[in-house]
């Protein structure tokens, strides 16, 4: 287990290939025989370390399945999935944020974070510092003692993000994490996620059906066709990031143009 340091630079991550994802001719089927449904594939996809990849597609295109394959919750029917050069193992190769927060209601905010730290093998003496740091990163200072059902949906999802970051896995997977939130909260959380990943330089795979969200977050966008999901469009995003505010970025003509482009590609892929 790597030490709990948040300063791993992008260069170091690149050199080790830590967090890099590689899918070779991956197919996934649910069920067997004549009733089998091919959800994904065949897909060939390489995500270099440090990249923020957004998977976009209409509902039922298999993007969540693809993420579950990368997380190690499902095994591909054909092909191979590699994360940091090895087969993915749940909880060991990637941090995961689900569509719903999936917090443990019998634990407080602090208890949820502490559990993640314990599972990550972090020395108990370091917990207070790590906890404060994690909560600070998602803007939840001072909520430690709250019950998780007492805080808002947006705050719950922030706790889920902090929890997923606890293990310092070089890969972060997010499955439509903001789909259930209101527009304002969604935008704020998008900015937070971008800040968190920019700073730590970890590889991120983010699944969404929103073209707007994809363009705002991604350094690369992959659009999937409808079942079975295959790659329809692979688009690098070269919007100016660090030097420009979120509002300014969202308002820029380049942003609007890209959003339209991606949106059309998603619709075309869904119809095909």
């Amino acid at each position, binding site marked *: 287990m790597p030490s709990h340091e948040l300063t791993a630079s992008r260069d170091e991550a690149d050199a080790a290939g830590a967090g890099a994802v590689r899918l070779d001719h991956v197919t996934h089927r649910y069920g067997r025989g004549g009733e089998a449904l091919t959800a994904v594939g065949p897909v060939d996809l390489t995500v270099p370390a440090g990249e923020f990849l957004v998977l976009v597609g209409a509902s039922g295109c298999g993007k969540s399945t693809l993420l579950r394959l990368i*997380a190690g*919750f499902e095994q591909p029917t054909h092909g191979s999935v590699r994360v940091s050069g090895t087969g993915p193992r*749940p*909880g*060991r190769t990637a*941090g*995961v944020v*689900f569509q*719903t927060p*999936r*917090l*443990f*209601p*019998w634990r407080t905010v602090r208890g949820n974070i502490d*559990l*993640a730290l314990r*599972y*990550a*093998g972090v020395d108990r003496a370091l917990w207070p510092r790590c906890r404060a740091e994690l909560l600070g990163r998602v803007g939840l200072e001072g909520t430690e003692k709250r*019950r998780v*059902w007492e805080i808002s949906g947006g705050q719950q999802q922030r706790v889920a993000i902090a*929890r*997923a970051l*606890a*293990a310092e896995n070089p890969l972060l997977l997010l499955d439509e994490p903001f789909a259930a939130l209101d527009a304002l909260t969604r935008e704020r959380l998008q900015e937070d996620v971008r800040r968190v990943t920019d700073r730590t330089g970890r590889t991120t795979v983010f699944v969404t059906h929103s073209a707007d969200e994809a363009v705002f977050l991604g350094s690369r966008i992959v659009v999937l066709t409808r079942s079975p999901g295959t790659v329809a469009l692979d688009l690098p995003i070269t919007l100016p990031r660090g030097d420009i505010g979120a509002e300014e970025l969202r308002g820029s003509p380049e942003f609007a143009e890209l959003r339209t482009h991606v949106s059309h590609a998603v619709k075309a892929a869904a119809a095909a």
Partner: protein
Amino acid sequence: MSTTSRPSRPDAPAARADVPPERPLPAGRTWARVRHAALPLGSLLLFLVAWQLLAASGTWSDTLVPPPAKVWDAFVTVSTTRDGVRGYNGTTLVEHLGISLRRIAIGGGIGIALGVLFGLLMGTVGRLRALFEPWITFLRTLPPLAYFSLLVIWLGINEEPKVTLLAVAAFPPVAVSTTTAVAAVPKSLIEAARALGGSRWDVVRDVVVPSALPETLTGVRLAVGVAYSSLVAAELVNGLPGIGGMVKDAANYNNTPVVLVGIFTIGVSGLIIDGLLLRLERAVVPWRGRA
């Protein structure tokens, strides 16, 4: 004697709905409490008056329906030492109750512990559930008296058959509710724990057990209730000292006042224990219904 427990009953479900999570404003609280208590207390009073009138009417003999005063007298007699006679059969009422409660604690405790263990196993492993569930259902439908005779043949007439009977009575409700609760643990939370790096054992300890706890505790309350209602049956043979044994023994001599004292004692102490368990449940699982 269900009439005695009636006064307190309407209070229980109402309290459950009122207490969590926001408390009512302090100003209206006292008045609300008075109004709350008025109905049950009123019905208790009405019951006592009706009883007194019935006894005084002379329709039935004193042996069948003793007046309240006579029962109160019996209560005082069995609770104290009077004229060198200590309580009932040399044991005071509190001591009778204490001995019975100890039997319930030991027997019920064993039954509950086994029930939780079986529930965890059956809820996790489908085959074990298929193997044991019919037997537990069978056991559950049997009235304790049905197997008490067998227990006496096997285990004699001392503590063993009594404690065993209470354990056998308490076991099924806990096993059934724990099984259901464990089988119903949300897969999404198990997956979340695994995604954080939790091992199989971590998942059991940190997700399955706390998630199943609310329903398991409901099963425990149910089990204590069943054990309590089996108390007189458990103490039918050689039950003295013991509150159930006292009732049985007094009945042999047509000593209705003492029988009534015993019944009241069992009912009231049962209500108190159920109330305590309900409080414990609320304190231990504040997240009930919020998962």
